[in-house]
């Protein structure tokens, strides 16, 4: 069923083919094959330690900064392998943004947090444009109204939920095509979580989204496709509704019904 939907190549933002990943000699991802559709939300679920974080970080080459890793297979982004030799990894990371598990704004002002990515990527020419782009990014992350009067105060004074939305705004500012979320709500309270979930739904219109979550409800209500990982293997990948109502694997059912995890 999922294969039919993900048939048309034009719809695919990313394709993961025969992906193996090792920390030293410890193999953490085993022959993963998965397609990620444009302007859709793909959720990655699975028990902790199964390789979700490792997997999502292979998608924008964030694992490259760790010493002693080995990676095999292809990851296509707009039909081009991001691990090819002629690829500019800095450019890949700008186009494939990332929001981390713990909100990690820079110890700078709110304004500078957003302006940073714009400056290093030379995306703006003058001050006026910079202000404008910062505002657009903050609006995009539904944070503008809350912070517009204190753009020059430290980002560390914001609440956890606001900090995470600031991190989303920061990612939006550099105009990525894909945004990766690694358990973005695990450090947040339910109200802040709801706001971020709502935001992610809105972002889907413009961006392709991959989200790691260990929260079954979140995956079920917020995603279009779900991949279930276990011990580094992709057990099942399907339309979210199918995974949560009629999974093809017994172990998937056991996991989503909370029999282990």
């Amino acid at each position, binding site marked *: 069923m999922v294969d039919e939907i993900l048939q048309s190549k034009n719809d695919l933002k990313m394709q993961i083919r025969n992906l193996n990943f090792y920390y030293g000699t410890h193999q953490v991802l085993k022959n993963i094959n998965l397609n990620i559709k444009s302007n859709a939300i793909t959720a990655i679920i699975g028990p902790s330690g199964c390789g979700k974080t490792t997997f999502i970080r292979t998608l*924008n080459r*964030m694992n490259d*900064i760790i*010493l002693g890793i080995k990676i095999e297979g292809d990851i296509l982004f707009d039909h081009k392998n991001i691990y090819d030799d002629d690829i500019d990894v*800095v*450019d890949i*990371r*700008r*186009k494939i*943004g*990332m929001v*981390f598990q*713990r909100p*990690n*704004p*820079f*110890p*700078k002002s709110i304004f500078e947090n957003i302006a*940073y*990515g714009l400056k*290093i*990527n030379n995306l703006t020419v003058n001050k006026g444009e910079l202000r404008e782009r910062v505002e657009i990014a903050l609006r995009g992350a539904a944070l503008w109204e809350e912070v517009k009067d204190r753009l020059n105060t430290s980002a*560390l004074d914001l609440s956890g939920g606001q900090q995470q939305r600031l*991190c989303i705004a*920061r*990612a939006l500012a*550099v105009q990525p095509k894909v945004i990766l979320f690694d358990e973005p709500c695990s450090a947040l309270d339910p109200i802040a979580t709801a706001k971020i979930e709502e935001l992610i739904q809105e972002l889907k219109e413009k961006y392709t989204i991959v989200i790691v979550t260990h929260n079954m409800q979140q995956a079920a209500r917020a995603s279009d496709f779900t991949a279930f990982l276990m011990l580094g293997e992709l057990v099942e990948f399907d339309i979210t509704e199918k995974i949560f109502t009629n999974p093809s694997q017994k172990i998937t059912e056991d996991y989503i019904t909370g029999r282990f995890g």
Partner: protein
Amino acid sequence: MKSKQHLKEKIIKNIFFLSSLSSILFLLGTSFILFKEGLPLFREIDLKTFLWGKSWYPTYNPPEFGLLPLLLGTLWTTLGALIIAVPLGVSAAIYISELATPKIKDYLKLAIEMLTGVPSVIYGFLGIVVLGPWLQNLLDLPIGLCALTASLLLALMAIPTITSLSEEALFSVSKEYKEASYALGATRWETIIKVTVPAASSGISTAVLLGMGRVIGETMTVLMVAGGAAVIPHSFLQPVRTITATIALEMGETVVGSVHYYALFAIACVLFIISLALNLSADYFLYKFRRTSR
């Protein structure tokens, strides 16, 4: 049984408390003696003549006890040392913390630690035998022992302090900041210069201030290589005399209770106040750093 145990714990606790108290007592005692022996100077000359006095001629008749040449000698050599040591020390710290492979990192850290252990008299020796004559030749100076020579050697002594403390500050910058930077498409350099170093800036300030404290209080090296002339310096190529060197040189020849004796204590008070201020600001930056780094 239980109360005996309790008593034992109480005694041990008090012993530790007293030993921690002793450091405060030493500090208070030291400052008390310094000021007790230094303040009587102002019965003989007024504070302004001391602070703004342009000559230090303790054995002339009448003697002059002007602080300026010595204070400027100290500040001059210290400034020179910092101009050299801060860029080098901080760059070395950046290299060790952010760029070196783990193995090179270990070797460099070891080397720097060993550098810290070199006694200052050896630097003085090197200055007299090697660096001084070399500079004299190179720059065609009348004398090789001058402020520049002292500054270069003091820089060598400050670099280990500045490097190792800055390295610690850089290393403790949260990995999450760096990851956030990379994820936005920053290069390694952009991340180091625009995220890591600013996040460590108050820790680096602490390192610089403590390095400065090390230099300002240094006696043996400057005594040996700075040239020893108690005149207000106009260039780095001129011999100078620091507060520390003056005390070390002259303390032995003064009569207890003489004006000269009080004057030496008075300049020691000035040095003490400067060092205290440096350490307090270092602590302040350290406190700030601990608050912002997670």
